[in-house]
């Protein structure tokens, strides 16, 4: 399962951060997840709950997911539009020369720790 792999890498990155910053306990992890990052929130939370007890610093850590809306930029008419609603084709000029500006990221925004 895809989400399993992502959480595995998240846990690894957090373990490393904890070691570097000499943290004993991470009580809260806030992630920013893009609307079109392909991450299914429910599966992600299931995977998180599975991995948590296996990483001592994360044992009672709370996970917060913040969604970042997906926005596409049209190169032809220089406008922005909602990616999920219109896809790759610009609703203003019909061009396909469009680029995702934001919305596929998956970033660890901050952690609360001691």
């Amino acid at each position: 399962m895809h989400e399993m792999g992502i959480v595995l890498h998240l846990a690894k990155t957090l373990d490393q951060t904890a070691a570097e910053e000499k943290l004993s306990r991470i009580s809260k992890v806030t992630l920013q997840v893009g609307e079109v990052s392909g991450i299914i929130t429910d599966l992600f939370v299931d995977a998180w709950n599975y991995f948590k007890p296996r990483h001592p610093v994360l044992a009672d850590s709370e996970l917060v997911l913040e969604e970042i809306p997906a926005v596409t930029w049209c190169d032809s008419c220089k406008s922005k539009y909602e990616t999920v609603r219109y896809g790759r084709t610009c609703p203003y000029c019909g061009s396909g020369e469009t680029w995702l500006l934001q919305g596929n990221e998956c970033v660890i925004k901050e952690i609360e720790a001691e």
Partner: protein
Amino acid sequence: MKIIKLGEKITAANDREAEALRQRLKEKGILLINLMSAAGSGKTTLLSRIIKDMKETRIGVMEADIASDVDAVRIEALGARAIQVHTNGMCHMDAGMTAEAVDALGDDELDLIFLENVGNLICPAEYDTGAGKKLMILSVPEGDDKPLKYPLMFMESDALVISKMDAREFFPFDMEAFTDRVRILNPDIKIFPVSAKTGEGMEALEGWLSEALEEWRS
């Protein structure tokens, strides 16, 4: 209690491991190529052909699969050095697994190492394995709409092989529409239409591999 602002990618630890592996291989003059495609696009068949054609290049192959061993057996039968890596259910290879696989294969007396990634058009593109180049395959039977559905691998790859060109007449594959879709995602990608069965297009691809190796070592 303190709040630490990270703004770091989830895969930050993986990315650091990948960079370390890339540097290690660069110092040894070995080019690691991450070969990615959907299941059955012709990765093992293409590698077999490359091994037969590029006799003067010392090639090692790491076959990643969720569970089976058949691909490594096919490569070893050609006399190339090969190992099988099991991902134990994971749908992709990451840098840690790749570094372990390189150790198991042995990195002495090799020029090129191919990592045949798990057959999957989505997840492998999301993880840096530490490879110096990324090569992907899209086979004609899969259809010309794949860049629209699965853009990331097309965006991430240095080169794209369009495989099974010998079967083109049997499938409604619009080559022009396909390459346009790919170039919108990745203007710099090199595209090689190939048939591993007839040998069509193999020379151009193998030329690119030799150049990439030379460039890696300079």
